């Protein structure tokens, strides 16, 4: 069931979807299927929420898109590339086109806020002089200009959240995946972050926000991918 899908990659002159799932099933080990027959697409420059109760498989779905786990069955394509048997180099190339905000931030505690945010550029081999102004600008933009030398354990939950978002955005991703990005911030900041994601989307980034905050989702009219009992329903 791929409501609103378009197999753009098969048509000349149209862009491949950022993500394409076809009858994807996923189980961990010999356990029950966490996801069953999931089919959907994320179109370029689209904005959508991924929602569902806790344990419904939202994080697993994000991990499948991030290519950190392989599906048990079905077909997963990212940026038009089918990922089964993909080489490590190609995998790295695809990941560099994505930005991800983890639910638990995943900031590296031994690096400063500045170093954490600069990480995606540093691993690309860019010199610090080349990206310093860019990183500082983004840190100021998310309100962490005065906290750039601080190590993550000394940041508040909201500051960590913003640092994680800045890290996801610094390399100008074509696809942004955010797992509960407003889970640790007050409603005012949550709305501000949502506006940030919408602005990014307007500039061309495909955005997928996993959340179970209906208040947040009700703020904008966007497509909703609803997970329940391992199956996906799409509300346009």
């Amino acid at each position, binding site marked *: 069931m791929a409501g609103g899908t378009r197999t753009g990659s098969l048509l000349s002159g149209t862009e491949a979807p950022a993500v394409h799932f076809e009858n994807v099933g996923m189980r961990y080990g010999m356990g029950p299927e966490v996801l069953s027959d999931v089919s959907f697409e994320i179109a370029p420059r689209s904005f959508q929420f991924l929602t569902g109760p806790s344990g419904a498989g939202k994080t697993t779905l994000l991990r499948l898109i*991030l290519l*950190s786990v392989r599906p048990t069955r079905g077909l997963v394509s990212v940026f038009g590339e089918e990922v089964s048997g993909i080489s*490590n*180099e190609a995998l*790295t*190339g695809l*990941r*560099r*086109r994505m930005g*991800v905000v983890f639910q638990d931030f*995943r900031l*590296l*505690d*031994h*690096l*400063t806020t*500045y*170093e954490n945010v*600069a*990480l*995606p550029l*540093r*691993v*690309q081999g860019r010199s*610090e002089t080349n990206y*310093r*102004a860019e*990183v*500082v*600008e*983004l840190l*100021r*933009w998310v*309100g962490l*200009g005065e906290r*750039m*030398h601080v190590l993550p354990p000394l940041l508040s939950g909201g500051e960590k959240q913003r640092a994680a978002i800045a*890290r996801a*955005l610094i*390399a*100008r*991703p*074509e696809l942004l995946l955010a797992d509960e990005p407003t889970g640790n911030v007050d409603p005012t900041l949550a709305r501000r972050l949502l506006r*940030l994601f919408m*602005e*990014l989307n307007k*500039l*061309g*980034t495909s955005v997928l926000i996993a959340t179970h905050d209906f208040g947040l989702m009700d703020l904008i009219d966007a497509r909703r991918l609803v997970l329940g009992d391992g199956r996906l329903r799409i509300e346009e």
Partner: protein
Amino acid sequence: MAETGAPPRPAPAASPASASEPSLPATLRRNAPLVPTDTAASRALAAVIAILTFLAALCAGAAEIVATSAGQWQGAVAQEVTVQVRPGPGRDIDADVTRAQEIAKAEPGIAETRIFSKGESERLLEPWLGSGLDLSDLPVPRLITVKLASSPAPDLKALREKLTEALPGVASLDDHALWLQRLSTMANTFVGIGIGIVALVLAATGLAVVFATRGAMAGNKEVVEVLHFVGANDDYIARAFQSRFFRLGLRGGAVGAGAALLVFALAGVLARISRSGPAGDEIEALFGSFQVGWRGYFLIVLIGVIASVVTAVVSRITVRRFLSW
């Protein structure tokens, strides 16, 4: 990285903080390693590498001392040959000895000859027969030591033939070849054992690094995962671990090799001091001057460097294998 076509970032003008635009500091990075340095585990690994390097350097130094001493002994022995003149029935041994000396002296490449007197020859038997005995009735062979010149090279084969021809069944030439061969075999065996032990110790260093790297990978699983998610490839991550372990290896190797250098330097000083004492002759006979020399010191430093390089290479290979499972 597909920079082209990537969306631009939202305009910074939206930020209230960007209005003032304070100047940027020269650098904001502290050159912090990407892989956190677990001080307890790192110290333990550096200590293990230091101990193993120390042991390997001791073995290498000891093998070097044996090789040098054996070389000195061989050099000293090879500069001298012995002519043995046996008493025969109805022969004047003193005349035979004189004749043998004349033959030796006439040969080119002979620097000096010296006849061991009858008394000196008998004294050589004292360790076996005891002192105070009358050995005049025993047919004790007489010896002539022949010192060889470095130039022109002596032809020992011709000398042997001349002695056999002039004094058949009486005079013989001993060029110590058998003894030299045994000495050479013994020295080579010691050096071989030393090389084997150094190789084993370096292999043990490698294995210790494999376990430490796997432990570090397991302990930093989240860091590795984050690095992957932000676009680092396996080689980049392997380099990050390699850089960390190379620094540890360098520290351990430097401490181990430094300690070994200190031990050999101290041992050399102690040997020089004790040489003046009663045991000095025995020590010098066994170990020569107990100096490892520049070649030995170079070997020890080289082992420290090899231990560091082994640490770096093994950690890189381990990370690559760990990531590609």
